[in-house]
């Protein structure tokens, strides 16, 4: 019995160590990959058409998802705020509560998570399939570096798209909060907007959300292209890479969000 428990503990410890080794290995490889991308970014910048195309693919094609999600998140936020604040007779402040929640936290985080699910998976699977179908090897044989030609523009496209999508998400969220709070629940429209205008600071609140979204854009795009580029070139490998991209991005965004929030609030 005791021996069995020991064996079990040993197996768990080995599994944890094995996973930790894998994590640090991947973490190091990811950093090197990031450096490679940064070194090769001038190539992408010199070919703006490639980047614009990726902004379109990652950003414009995600617009419907982002706008719908933003609208409903804003509506729910207003509904919950109204439900709670009305107990204290403070339902007029729901505009301010929704706006602060959206621009500081929900906008950047939910947009990054949606980006990972919609555009990140597309990036990972596209690059993974290019690996599996020898397109990347083909480029290398044509003396074209895939990091420059394929990875760089896609990474940059994602980094540009995420902050823009975040702003759109937050704007749609505020519209949703207005719809729910003012049109449906009957909060005074003037108070709704004036509270928001008085309490939401451009530099502290809006910019903190934008700063977060830039970090999330870098993290989400990097993880998506990294997983796709380094996937096992089989159907199963591409599937696993896509899953890993979403899971790793989601966790990274949540951890990063805490760190950034602590940093940004600490700076006040």
């Amino acid at each position, binding site marked *: 019995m005791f021996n069995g428990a020991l064996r079990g503990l040993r197996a768990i410890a080995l599994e944890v160590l094995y996973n930790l080794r894998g994590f640090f290995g991947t973490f190091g490889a990811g950093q090197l990959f990031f450096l490679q991308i940064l070194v090769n970014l001038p190539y992408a910048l010199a070919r703006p058409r490639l980047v614009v195309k990726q902004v379109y693919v990652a950003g414009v094609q995600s617009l419907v998802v982002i706008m719908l999600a933003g609208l409903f998140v804003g509506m729910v936020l207003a509904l919950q705020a109204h439900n709670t604040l009305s107990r204290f007779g403070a339902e007029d402040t729901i505009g301010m509560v929704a706006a602060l929640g959206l621009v500081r936290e929900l906008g950047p985080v939910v947009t990054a998570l949606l980006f990972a699910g919609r555009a990140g998976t597309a990036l990972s699977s596209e690059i993974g399939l*290019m690996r599996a179908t020898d397109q990347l*090897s*083909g480029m290398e044989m044509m003396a074209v570096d895939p990091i420059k030609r394929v990875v760089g523009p896609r990474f940059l496209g994602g980094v540009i798209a995420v902050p823009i999508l975040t702003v759109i998400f937050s704007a749609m969220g505020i519209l949703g909060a207005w719809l729910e709070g003012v049109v449906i629940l009957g909060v005074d429209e003037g108070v709704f907007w004036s509270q928001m205008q008085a309490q939401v600071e451009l530099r502290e609140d809006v910019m903190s959300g934008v700063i977060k979204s830039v970090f999330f854009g870098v993290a989400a795009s990097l993880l998506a292209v990294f997983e796709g580029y380094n996937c096992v070139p089989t159907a199963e490998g591409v599937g696993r890479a896509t899953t890993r991209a979403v899971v790793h991005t989601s966790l990274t965004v949540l951890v990063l969000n805490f760190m950034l929030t602590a940093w940004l609030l600490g700076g006040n």
Partner: protein
Amino acid sequence: MDSPSETAAATPGDGGEAGRTAGAAGGCPGTDNIISVRDLCYARGQAKIFDGLDIDIRRGGVTAIMGPSGTGKTTLLRLMTGQERPDRGQVLFDGQDVTKMKRRELFRMRKRVGMLFQNGALLTDINVYENVAFPLREHTRLPERLIRHIVFTKLQAVGLRGAWKLMPAELSGGMARRVALARAIVMDPEIIYYDEPFVGLDPISMGVVVRLIRRMNDVLGLTSIVVTHDVDEVSTIADCSFLLSDGRVAASGTPDALRDHHSDTVVQFMSGMADGPVPFHYPAPDYAEQLRSMRGG
């Protein structure tokens, strides 16, 4: 040309050291070699893929590298083009050792070569025209008019000028390979590597690709290296063939010389026999014993 008995080299497995020595000489006529592989050793995990491989590729000819599945034909192409590094040995491309090249030198070397992948490896998000123009756009600053002229010339050579607007997904397997061939020759390379160019093609497409390989080689003055296990097709166009087995050259020479070869490995491969030195059965324990043990389990 030498007689088959003189040019065909014996397999090391069948003919001992004499075979290896003959393999090292290349087995094909000519002294002007564009590629020389020397004492190449490469293992993947515990499995030895090459163990002291020696091959000489003559400039200007069509050379076939043949062998049963799993003998490392594609791996050899990857080693020749610097996509993989060997454990030991040299791959000399025009006198320069590919195995020691840095990335920048490799890219410089690859601008002088073209490669046709088994599946064509066309970029799926751009059309036929853009695929063929891709190397030109990446490596030159030619005006669009000139690029258009070159691309249509190459597409005309493979008979697909009319398909310039099509996307890769709209092409048949044979057409995709011809577009890939047009792309491979668009930079006027000195040498083209073909990785299994006949796999999955119907007889008409196969005939077209076979003739194209020979015609491109002769008209453009290329050197062609064709990795394949399609003996009949490649025999019609190859000047010299190498048969790989057990990590070394089992035999080399003209296609006719290989056909007349007497070693068991060569005879099995050339005549497509199911069993021989390359066994039909994967190594396994005794059949009855395995059934009994599985029943017991």
